[in-house]
């Protein structure tokens, strides 16, 4: 039996050796291997919500408009647009002579079909639908003109239309494949064609040779890399090995320690990209004691040593977050000071009646110890951040119960139960309107359980204001109000640590932070 086993093993090794000897020589087609992280539950940009899908699809679809690095909107599939004075009507003049990868011409009718697909409740769109807000009607005025009508003014609409989730897909393909199968046969107008997607395994894109135009944010007219293959590396611990073994040329969301290490290796280059949206932050529950007391909330925020957290856990590769939105988001103002102030925190707690007792290591008031319940998700180093905050707060005499949930659903469950004092959720997006569901009284992410008339008004008006200067003013006031009410403890701005092989050139990302502009990428060695 033993000899038999040995024979099988030997045969196996021999065949492996033979295969290695006959290994395919390096491909002459220039090919880039891009490492994605989480496997998205679905890849349809109109339906699914993950940021992962935007990474390849940004280059498969063009959008009506694009957003540049300064946050301005530039023409895309729409040459020009006008907005009515009441903010209820947007008219787009479309670019002529553009066709989809399958030959279908792009025109106003295509825009109508795409937007109506997103709005249709049967499509069950998880993100795009809500990004479009109060959009109600799309009219095709002529072959190259469309008018969008809203039920009320909605300032974030242009930003929504600039994202791949509202990318323009070929009506022929949409009709042919239907809602469930379209994600495997996607057709857009962009610089790369969609070749295939094997769920959870890989996604392949090929250069579109007929791409004849491009928005001003693209440097190249034509893509340099012929093929791009995306693979998934859900487990953060597997990303550095993949880079080191040459399996991936570009890898996103590298853990900070690995990034620091690989940065010192000349055969790799770090491409850090700040992601607009919300920083890693904890929301304080204003309805659950002891955080129902403003002084306690202020003390918790003041005593958090955020720079120390960033230096230890994130290798100093992120800035300290100083607002409920990150510093790379349009409309950001600094409202929460970055420095730690334990003296002030101690004073606040003493004034609130939470005094240090000789009998216990915790602060006590009326016989009860000062205890806070903290709920965190398992990703993004949240557990480590939570543990460091615990250390820092325990030094102040605050007892911390740290609970970790396993999934996003777990976070929402904790939110609904309401027994937490601090909870961590964060979303990304270039438009500060994403704060609205967090701080309005009926918002679906109102983790602070706040019902403040001022915030409701400010955020509501900011969503309707069409004048950018007015919006900036309103958003600044809203952020200041949030800080005054001590509703959020912002920890660090999210910086996506992309690592690329030294031979990859021109790698840059769009205004949303997540999505690479693949048309500009070239390889110096195939």
């Amino acid at each position, binding site marked *: 039996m033993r000899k038999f086993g040995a024979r099988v093993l030997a045969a196996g090794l021999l065949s492996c050796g033979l295969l290695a000897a006959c290994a395919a020589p390096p491909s002459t087609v220039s090919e880039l291997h891009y490492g994605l992280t989480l496997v998205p539950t679905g890849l349809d940009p109109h339906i699914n*919500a993950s940021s992962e899908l935007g990474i390849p699809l940004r280059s498969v679809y063009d959008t009506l408009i694009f957003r540049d690095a300064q946050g301005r909107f530039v023409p895309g599939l729409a040459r020009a647009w006008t907005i009515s004075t009441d903010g209820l009507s947007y008219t787009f003049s479309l670019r002529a002579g553009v066709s989809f990868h399958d030959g279908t011409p792009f025109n106003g009718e295509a825009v109508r079909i795409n937007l109506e697909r997103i709005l249709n409740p049967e499509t069950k769109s998880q993100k795009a639908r809500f*990004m479009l807000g109060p959009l109600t009607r799309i009219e095709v005025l002529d072959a190259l003109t469309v008018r969008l009508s809203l039920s009320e003014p909605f300032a974030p609409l242009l930003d929504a239309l600039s994202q791949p989730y509202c990318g323009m897909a070929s009506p022929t393909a949409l009709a042919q494949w239907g809602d469930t199968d379209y994600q495997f046969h996607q057709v857009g107008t962009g610089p790369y064609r969609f070749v295939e997607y094997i769920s959870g395994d890989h996604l392949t894109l090929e250069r579109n040779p007929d791409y004849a135009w491009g928005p001003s944010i693209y440097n190249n007219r034509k893509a340099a890399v012929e093929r791009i293959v995306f693979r998934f590396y859900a487990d953060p611990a597997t990303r550095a090995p993949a880079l080191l073994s040459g399996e991936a040329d570009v890898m996103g969301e590298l853990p900070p320690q690995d990034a620091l290490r690989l940065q010192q290796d000349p055969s790799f280059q770090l491409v850090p990209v700040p992601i607009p949206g919300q920083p890693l932050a904890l929301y304080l529950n204003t309805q659950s004691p002891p955080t129902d007391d403003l002084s306690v909330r202020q003390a918790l925020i003041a005593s958090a040593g955020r720079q120390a957290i960033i230096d230890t856990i994130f290798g100093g590769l992120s800035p300290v977050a100083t607002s409920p939105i990150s510093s790379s988001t349009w409309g950001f103002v600094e409202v929460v000071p970055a420095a730690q102030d334990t003296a002030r925190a101690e004073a606040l707690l003493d004034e609130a009646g939470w005094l240090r007792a000789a009998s216990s290591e915790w602060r006590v008031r009326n016989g009860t110890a000062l205890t806070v319940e903290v709920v965190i998700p398992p990703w993004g180093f949240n557990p480590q951040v939570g543990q460091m905050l615990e250390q820092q707060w325990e030094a102040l005499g605050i007892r911390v119960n740290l609970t970790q949930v396993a999934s*996003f659903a777990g976070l929402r469950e904790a939110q609904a139960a309401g027994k937490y004092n601090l909870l961590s959720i964060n979303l990304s997006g270039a438009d500060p309107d994403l704060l609205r569901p967090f701080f309005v009284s009926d918002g679906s992410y109102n983790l602070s359980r706040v019902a403040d008339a001022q915030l409701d008004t400010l955020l509501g008006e900011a969503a309707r204001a069409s004048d950018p200067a007015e919006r900036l003013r309103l958003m600044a006031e809203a952020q200041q109000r949030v800080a005054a009410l001590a509703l959020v403890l912002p920890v660090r701005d999210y910086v996506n640590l992309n690592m690329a092989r030294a031979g990859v050139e021109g790698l840059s990302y769009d205004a949303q932070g997540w999505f690479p502009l693949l048309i500009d990428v070239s390889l110096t060695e195939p």
Partner: protein
Amino acid sequence: MSLRTFLRRILGSLTTIWLVTTLVFFAIRLSHIDPLAALLGQGLASQAQAAEMRTALGLDRPLLQQYALFLSGLARGDLGRSLFDGQPVVRAIAQSLRFTAPLALSAWLLAIALGLALGSLASRASAWEAGRPARWLARLTSAALVLGTSTPVAWSGLLILWAAVPLLTGLHPGPARDVAQLALPTLTLGIASGCSLGRVAEAGLSRARREPFFIAARARGIGPLWRLEWSALRTTLAPVISLAGVEAAFLLGGTMVTETLFARPGVGRLLVESILRGDFPLVQAIVALMAAGYALFNLLADVLASSLDPRLREETE
């Protein structure tokens, strides 16, 4: 095994599968996990929109009605669609099986080969005719087997992953790389499973060595040793085979950790993600599949065992 027993076992297995599926059906629906939470994860839906979605997915109907719908669908052969990407459950599972099946099969074969080889080696610890060094090697192997069963797959997998980095460097994409990428998780799972099989084989073989027939044969110089061990193994094959059967079912489903580590979108990983997201149709289908697999492999193992070991055959009535 008689035909009647065989058919009775099949019926029993079907009942078991049905019971398991029903239990899981109610267990996950009664849990706090709300599929909508993950579905609308990055979305900014309001409460009204969330309620709309809940109705569209049929999640607001009473539990028993949902169960009845599920059963009627099952009778038609329709296992439903995933709550997340709307893909038919059958297709999602079939796609993930493409990744799990080759891994499970090769890991299982490796486990059997390794288990029998190491188990035989380890059983020599009590061999009276072996020299001292052979006995020490045997004891070491025995300890290694226990070490193998007690090491979490997640840890050994990580070590293997890192050890393989220098081997994989410079290997161009192609058949060679695909083989290498299958080899790593196969090794991880195969070693873990093989050690557990090995311990059973070791126990059986040490017992067999003390049997009169074995001692007599060795004393008479009958060999080679491996052929004698094979005949001894036949007497103790039953527990080995039944364990191999269980391991097969385990490998099919319990590969979740390995699949995450080595980035393979297989059934195990799909199951965990589905449970955490509350994707009920997928969870039910996968658990039912595992129960079926377990029952099937157990049955096959029993059939094989009784054919190999006459003592296990039933007496004809």
